[in-house]
């Protein structure tokens, strides 16, 4: 956001989202700790500290799995987009649950050593050359560091400071962290799990993540944004009748940028398809009163100048465009963010009734 930073931005929708998430976490823990503690049982009886550690660990895994399913689900079906809206709060809460899991482990298994407990954690098992008995804790430590980085850099300040592409690359650590968590569980708790309810949750969740991401990538590959053709220095988009009123046509330009050309009541405007916030696909949003709303987090921009309405100051680049021989053409050289471009009127345009 481009008003003064505050620690946490909450609104009614985010309060509701966080409340549902918190209820889900509490329900999961109550189920695994009190209602049906046998779900996490093992070959030998376990004490409350170990049981707590396992419950919080299982909870963190399920939360991480849900987080990783939200992205591809939103790509596959836009009805899942509301889940994307406040995913960062979900991630931060997951990190706290994972820290709690790590604390129980650290303060039970490694607290009674003559060594410092952190040192004990690192050298208690160093059998890195064998799969059975592999020090699976290393995967957990790595995943926790990744989650800490993601949670610690989740404030909007970091998006603006690092730029969305760098921030998104940093936050791709979530994929690496998830693979590390899968290894942590596979070579750890799975080795002596006796009640296979959690085993089924684990394998089902991990496979769901794998399949959803592969499917979303396949859909993106098959039906991704069309590549625009270039003609005498201009890029051809489509005919004006191909863009519905209030919507856009997205094209991938030869220089790699994506442009979104909007039809607003018979007037055409072109802006960058990448939202200034998290590079969300603006061209998938709808224009209402000259403002397009990003489908990811609701940031809005005037399609004629790429500027967010006051008091916000976000801006996206705009593009010059023209109509030639019934074809919309865009100048591939983007204007600096916030540059006004006179909309191009479509001759004889009449709104087609829905």
């Amino acid at each position, binding site marked *: 956001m481009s008003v003064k*930073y505050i620690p946490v931005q909450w609104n009614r929708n985010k309060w509701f989202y966080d409340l549902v998430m918190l209820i889900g976490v509490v329900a999961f823990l109550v189920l695994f700790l009190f209602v049906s503690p046998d779900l996490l049982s093992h070959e030998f009886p376990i004490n409350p500290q170990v049981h707590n550690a396992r419950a919080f660990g299982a909870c963190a895994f399920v939360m991480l799995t849900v987080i990783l399913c939200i992205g591809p689900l939103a790509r596959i079906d836009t009805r899942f987009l509301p889940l994307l809206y406040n995913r960062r709060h979900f991630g931060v809460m997951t990190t706290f649950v994972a820290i709690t899991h790590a604390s129980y482990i650290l303060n039970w298994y490694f607290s009674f050593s003559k060594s410092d407990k952190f040192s*004990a954690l690192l050298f208690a098992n160093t059998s890195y050359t064998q799969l059975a008995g592999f020090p699976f804790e290393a995967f957990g430590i790595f995943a926790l560091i990744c989650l*800490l980085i993601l949670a610690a850099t989740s404030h909007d300040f970091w998006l*603006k400071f690092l730029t969305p*592409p760098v921030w998104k690359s940093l936050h*791709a650590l979530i994929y690496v962290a998830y693979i590390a968590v899968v*290894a942590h569980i*596979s070579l750890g708790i799975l080795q002596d799990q006796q009640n296979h309810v959690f085993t089924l949750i684990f394998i089902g969740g991990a496979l769901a993540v794998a399949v959803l991401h592969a499917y979303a990538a396949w859909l993106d590959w098959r039906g991704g944004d069309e590549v625009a053709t270039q003609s005498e220095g201009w890029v051809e988009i489509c005919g004006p009748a191909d863009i519905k009123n209030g919507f856009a046509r997205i094209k991938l330009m030869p220089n790699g940028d*994506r442009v979104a050309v909007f039809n607003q009541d018979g007037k055409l405007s072109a802006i960058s398809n990448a939202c200034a916030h998290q590079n969300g696909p603006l061209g998938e949003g709808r224009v209402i009163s000259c403002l397009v709303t990003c489908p990811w987090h609701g940031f809005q921009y005037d399609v004629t100048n790429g500027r967010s309405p006051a008091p916000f100051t976000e801006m996206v*680049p705009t593009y010059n465009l023209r109509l030639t021989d019934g074809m919309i053409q865009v100048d591939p050289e983007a204007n600096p963010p916030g540059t006004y471009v006179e909309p191009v009127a479509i001759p004889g345009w009449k709104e087609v009734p829905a």
Partner: protein
Amino acid sequence: MNQAELILLLVKIWGGVGACVALGFLTFGIDRLDEDARGAYVFRLLIIPGVLLIWPLVLWRWYVLAGGKDLWARRYQPRRNSHRVFALIMPVLIVGIIAVGWSVRQTWPVDVAPVQLSEPGQ
């Protein structure tokens, strides 16, 4: 000093340098770089852990922004293709890791007798 102590020492050094960077960045650097941070102080407490963890990246961005070397066009170039890489690698690794995990289990199938993996530690 053993290897575990050396790793912990490196972690402390990393955090110590991060604390110095955080002190400088959050007291005067941030105000010059980001107009939205001017007059906003409470949120800076939330920024401290991030600086401690990724201070080299903070120093790099501080250098780029303070020197006016930031290219605005790069802010609008999402790296969408990187997801495809993860989307291809993740399923393979997830299935492979779970399969390996199952294959080395000693308590299932039930007729596999457990074996001692290594000598007890000293």
